[in-house]
């Protein structure tokens, strides 16, 4: 509007004044902003730089390859196989439903798996990889790879997973690995962060578990830059981890396989040990199971069939089974008597078929009796009365002491699960365990390895090795770690009179090789491999007086569960002991007829370093043995693949 000159001047003056005020205010504000900028970007810059780095850099673990487990000659027992799997990320897939349905047409997938995966994919953040299918075979895997253009967001991936190529043979020794459970984490003081990686495997039982530290190795780390959504943008740095150490066991895979096959479907165990250094060449327990099932996550029905089997395939009978050793214990009684001076080498006993003691009658297995016997003859014929007699003279405490010197009644530390100490009873033990006094009848029972005496096949093998060598050999399972030999210390002398040991060895030679020996049918005729041994038959039931008077029921007529255990211990060659063997066949019947032939086959295989040589068998048995050996379901010695049908 038109204004007077004065109004216009007033207006201009007012606006100038107010404008300058406004400008001053604005300037002050700009100054404040500048000061704040300086404070954040100059004074506090270091702190914020650190925060920015923390934001973007995160450290990821690279899982190390698990160490291999090999047999004594380097044959693979536990390895890592490539696990072909297919993963999908939602952000790259676009239409997830369409892609997934297309994928389901290519690889075997149930409708349930499809729904489950779809739900997973939608639940997770868009960039997260979701495993669609694990353990694909190569054909399906390559189908996915070839069709990649039609499957956006689908990535075929290769990971590592444990594989046991000689599954059944080593299930009990080596055990298996599985996904890390909360229990595994709780057991450790400060769990390795790598255990929290998805799909990471940890040793659950056996060597896998007890040598976990060596096998696991050390995780590498990867510094990565991550964006706000957690997606890895690039790798900034990497520190390689250390792969797990390879372990070489003392076991001979071929011998183990032979023993496992030889035991077949029996509920049985066999242990072969090098008498010079304690190397376990074979430690078989039958029936066995497939550890690969456990790695993949065993199904309920498979697991139930293992636990419900009365032959207990999951148990490692070689070290976890404690059995009355029966007559295989007689060397302990005899050595205790000799060592304590209760008897001398010329001691003779007359066996009328029983021993009367304190109004009770203790029977010899031979009803008619053996007549008068020397020490070696008592072993040869396995006369019980002889041992009843000398046991009374020496007493249980001395027997127990000798038993412990020979490796019974105590754990042998090996990287295997559930190793039992067995029982080597004495007065103190009975008082402690039962609160009762030891009675002479207990001694008599113990003298022939019955009653309270319990030993595992491993312990019996140790005992035999110690008698054969005169030295305190300790069993061992690990020969090398990461290519470095584990030194086996020279075993110390047992301190037992060599003449006493020689008498035992003579008796054991007689058992197998003399005309009247109880295991003569299981002898070796090759003069360089002569076998010496002792049979054992341990009762799992009481024989009543009534039954005895009518004639003891033959094993074949009893139900399996009530039959005797068949045992055998032995070593070979007699003149230059190399290997000790212990065999138990649960409810197998007589040690001489059932256990001894197994022991002979296995020790021959050990001595020959392959199949048992037919020429080592008595000529009249060769035909039968040959056909038996031919039918064994053995693995290919190189690949470990089964040449015949699997024993499952």
């Amino acid at each position, binding site marked *: *509007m038109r*204004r007077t000159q004065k*109004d*216009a001047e*007033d*207006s*201009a003056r*007012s*606006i*100038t004044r*107010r*404008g*300058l*005020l*406004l*400008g001053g205010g*604005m*300037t002050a*504000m*700009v100054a*404040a*902003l*500048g000061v*704040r*900028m*300086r404070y*954040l*970007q*100059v004074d*506090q*810059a*270091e*702190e*914020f*730089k650190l*925060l*920015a780095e923390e*934001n*973007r850099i995160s450290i990821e673990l690279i899982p190390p390859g698990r160490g291999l487990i090999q047999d004594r000659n380097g044959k693979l027992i536990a390895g890592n196989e490539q696990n072909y799997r297919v993963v999908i990320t939602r952000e790259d897939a676009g239409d997830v439903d369409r892609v997934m349905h297309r994928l389901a047409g290519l690889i075997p997938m149930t409708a349930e798996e499809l729904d489950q995966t779809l739900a997973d994919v939608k639940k997770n953040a868009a960039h997260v990889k979701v495993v669609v299918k694990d353990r694909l075979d190569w054909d399906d895997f390559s189908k996915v790879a070839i069709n990649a253009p039609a499957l956006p967001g689908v990535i075929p991936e290769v990971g590592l997973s444990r594989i046991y190529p000689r599954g059944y043979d080593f299930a009990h020794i080596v055990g298996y690995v599985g996904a890390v459970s909360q229990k595994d984490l709780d057991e450790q003081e400060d769990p390795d962060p790598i255990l929290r990686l998805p799909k990471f495997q940890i040793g659950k039982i056996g060597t896998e578990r007890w040598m976990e530290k060596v096998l696991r190795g050390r995780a590498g780390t990867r510094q990565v*830059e*991550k*964006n*706000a*959504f957690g997606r890895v*943008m690039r790798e900034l740095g990497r520190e390689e981890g250390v792969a797990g150490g390879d372990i070489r066991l003392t076991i001979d895979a071929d011998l183990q396989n032979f023993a496992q096959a030889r035991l077949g479907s029996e509920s049985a165990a066999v242990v072969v040990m090098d008498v010079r250094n304690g190397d376990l060449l074979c430690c078989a327990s039958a029936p066995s199971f497939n550890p690969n099932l456990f790695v993949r996550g065993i199904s309920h029905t498979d697991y139930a069939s293992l636990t419900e089997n009365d032959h207990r395939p999951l148990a490692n009978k070689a070290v976890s089974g404690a059995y009355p050793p029966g007559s295989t214990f007689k060397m302990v009684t005899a050595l205790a008597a000799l060592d304590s001076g209760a008897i001398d080498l010329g001691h003779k006993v007359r066996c009328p078929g029983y021993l009367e003691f304190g109004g009770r009658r203790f029977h010899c297995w031979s009803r008619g009796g053996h007549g008068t016997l020397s020490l070696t003859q008592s072993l040869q014929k396995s006369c019980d009365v002889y041992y009843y007699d000398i046991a009374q003279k020496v007493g249980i405490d001395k027997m127990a002491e000798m038993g412990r010197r020979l490796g019974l009644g105590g754990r042998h530390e090996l990287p295997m699960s559930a190793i039992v100490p067995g029982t080597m009873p004495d007065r103190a033990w009975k008082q402690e365990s039962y609160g009762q006094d030891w009675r002479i009848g207990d001694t008599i029972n113990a003298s022939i390895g019955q009653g309270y005496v319990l030993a595992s096949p491993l312990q019996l093998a140790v005992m035999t090795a110690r008698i054969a060598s005169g030295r305190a050999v300790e069993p061992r399972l690990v020969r090398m770690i990461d290519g470095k030999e584990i030194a086996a210390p020279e075993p110390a002398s047992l301190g037992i009179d060599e003449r006493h040991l020689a008498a035992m060895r003579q008796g054991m030679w007689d058992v197998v090789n003399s005309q009247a020996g109880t295991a003569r049918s299981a002898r070796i005729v090759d003069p360089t491999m002569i076998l010496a041994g002792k049979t054992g038959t341990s009762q799992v039931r009481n024989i009543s007086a009534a039954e005895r008077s009518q004639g003891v029921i033959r094993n074949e007529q009893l139900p399996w569960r009530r039959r005797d255990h068949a045992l055998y211990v032995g070593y070979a060659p007699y003149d230059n002991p190399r290997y000790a063997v212990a065999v138990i066949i649960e409810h197998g019947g007589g040690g001489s007829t059932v256990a001894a032939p197994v022991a002979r086959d296995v020790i021959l295989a050990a001595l020959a370093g392959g199949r048992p040589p037919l020429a080592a068998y008595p000529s009249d048995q060769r035909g039968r043995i040959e056909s038996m050996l031919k039918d064994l379901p053995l693995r290919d010695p190189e690949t470990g693949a089964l040449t015949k049908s699997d024993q499952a």
Partner: protein
Amino acid sequence: MAFFENRLKQAPTGIRKVLYLNWQVIVLVTAVSAVGILMLWSVAGGDFNLWARRQAQVFAAGMVLMFMVAMVPVWFWRSMAGIAYLTSFVLLIIVDLYGVVGMGAQRWIDFGPLRLQPSEMMKFSLVLMLAAYYDWLDIRKVSRPLWVLIPVLLTSLPTVLVLMQPNLGTSLMLLMAGAAVMFAAGVSYWYFAAVTGVVVGTVVAVFQSRGTEWQLLHDYQFRRIDTFLDPSADPLGAGYNIIQAKIALGSGGWSGKGFMQGTQSRLNYLPEKQTDFIFSTLAEEFGFVGAFSLLILYALIIGFCMISALQNRDRFSSLLIIGVAANFFFYIAVNLSMVMGMAPVVGVPLPLMSYGGSAMLVILVGFGLMQSAHVHRPR
């Protein structure tokens, strides 16, 4: 230019008007916009097409628009003030009733390819309207209550409408722009003192009432105010944005991480990195040197505008330029305060830098009006 001004005593006409534009402001605006386009290129991770290309196109169109507005005599714009204000006002009502709600609750009306945001239009309409009002009003009546009430209503009605959208940031900007023009027009200091007193008194009363029997707000409302005022109390929720923005800013240090090297923005830790928080990226990549330089550029733009306003002897023109400059300033001040953690987060973009077509156009139209007033000033 002084040469021409001496030769031509009258207002320039025709194409020669171009020579009389305030070229300092044009150069500075272009410079800031160029920096903005560079930053949009950077925050897109080197993808020029994502935001930068469109921003450049809008800028070019806006510049043309600015020249066109500048060429039209300022008295035409004064005569259009009422119509522009009314149109904007009606559109605001329409949009409140029928508009499309989208990102950031900004409401718009869809006209095919053209998206009309009445709240953006209202920004310059209001300034135009108030400048025209005070030009018309006898300056002796400026501080009389009735004549103060009118501009208060002119400002607060659209403010309330925008607040209902709800768009807190823009309504605040309208309020401050209106107040700035009224202040420049000479409304008595007492009004401003009284309003300030009432606002402060209310805030104090509300906070004093907390925990007492006559508590004026519910507890949850107080808690909401708490996080609004101090976002660091809620680092994963409301505070996340501001904390990340401060980290970006601070980690830039003296000279920055380098162009396209800002980890905070490239890795998406920064929220709204292409819009309200674009300054964080600039500060992260170019450091204190870059951020402070930008602040100086802005200060120069405002400074040249204020000089032009004070030198202009036409009351309408002066008030119009002051309004445009104050509006521009408030945007910068509120945005930077927010990004630097000095003020609560309200959705206010950084003018000429933040990605957004209509905001850019409105700002350039505003500068067009300023240029028109500058070119057609009485000589």
